[in-house]
């Protein structure tokens, strides 16, 4: 078990180190973009020719970045999938939570690769910082290791579940793999000329202009959830006192 814990901690450290590396790799490609953008401002007559030259230049410039991005993506994708498998196969709940934290860091790196910097920070703060701490608290309160990790529905249920999941995975992958990315635009390693895509300012603008009502509704949801969680998790004082009173033979 200790070897696994060390592996989880190593994965966590790797995520911490490699997260900024993604940002560096992305900013390394940034000078190429500005030049391409400067070249893009041209008259309509030359536009086609310039566009061809522009894409060629962009391809050559982004080739190196895209290799780095590919390696980083493979690393973090492996961390995501491996961490998820780690989570659902652990018997020790604390080990599962630590694997979950590593997975969340890897997911935050994936968010950074998608230019969602603000959401990556939120991911680390809320998921790795708050929700996982909540899980650890509850595990410590319950203080009970798991005995039988797998459902005992028998071979049939298990086989059916695995087969259904494999089929779902196959269909999803099949559909998603055939998405025409060329139609949708350049790959994630390349630059699109919205300079503040995913920045905190842009997210704030979208959130407080277009989505102000959902934003406020979510705050209500959080308030209700907090009150409900307290109401559900609180020990039932009334029944206990009633039991005590009944045990003492007094009348309520």
């Amino acid at each position: 078990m200790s070897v696994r814990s060390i592996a989880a901690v190593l994965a966590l450290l790797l995520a911490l180190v490699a997260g900024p590396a993604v940002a560096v790799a992305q900013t390394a490609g940034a000078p190429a973009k500005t030049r391409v953008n400067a070249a893009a401002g041209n008259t309509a007559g030359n536009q086609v020719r310039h566009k061809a030259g522009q894409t060629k230049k962009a391809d050559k410039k982004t080739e190196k970045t895209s290799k780095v991005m590919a390696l980083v993506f493979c690393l973090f994708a492996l961390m995501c999938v491996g961490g998820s498998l780690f989570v659902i196969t652990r018997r020790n709940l604390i080990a599962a939570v630590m694997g979950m934290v590593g997975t969340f860091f890897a997911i935050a790196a994936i968010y950074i690769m998608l230019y969602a910097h603000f959401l990556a920070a939120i991911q680390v703060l809320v998921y790795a910082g708050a929700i996982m701490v909540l899980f650890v608290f509850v595990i410590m309160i319950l203080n009970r290791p798991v005995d039988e990790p797998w459902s005992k529905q028998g071979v049939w249920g298990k086989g059916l579940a695995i087969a259904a999941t494999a089929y779902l995975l196959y269909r999803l992958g099949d559909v998603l793999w055939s998405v025409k990315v060329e139609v949708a635009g350049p790959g994630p390693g390349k630059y699109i000329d919205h300079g503040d895509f995913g920045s905190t300012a842009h997210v704030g603008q979208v959130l407080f202009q277009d989505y102000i009502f959902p934003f406020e509704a979510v705050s209500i949801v959080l308030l209700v959830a907090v009150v409900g969680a307290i109401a559900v998790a609180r020990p039932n004082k009334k029944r206990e006192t009633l039991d005590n009173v009944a045990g003492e033979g007094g009348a309520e």
Partner: protein
Amino acid sequence: MSNVFFNITYGHFLVLAAVMFCIGVIGVLLRRNALIVLMSIELQLNAANITVLTFARMHNDMHGHALAFIVIAVAAAEAAVGLAIVVAVFRSRHHADIDRLTSLKH
């Protein structure tokens, strides 16, 4: 084959999200501990978030970020309520095994 691994497209992100979602589904279906089930649900929410952000990037549209933000907030609320229920169940039953929580059966 090397082209698949060295030329990262949006499809890679989507397939990664699908794989993570399916791992979460496996966790929900196969595990008996309520806490692991809750964590698997969090994994599914994160996979959905990756999909949303990939499409936002693909279409260069920031509205997906607002959606992902709201998903994260709702996931936090869901985790709080779910963990409170787990604590309450554990307090009355002294276990959190979802296969043994069958008192609502017919």
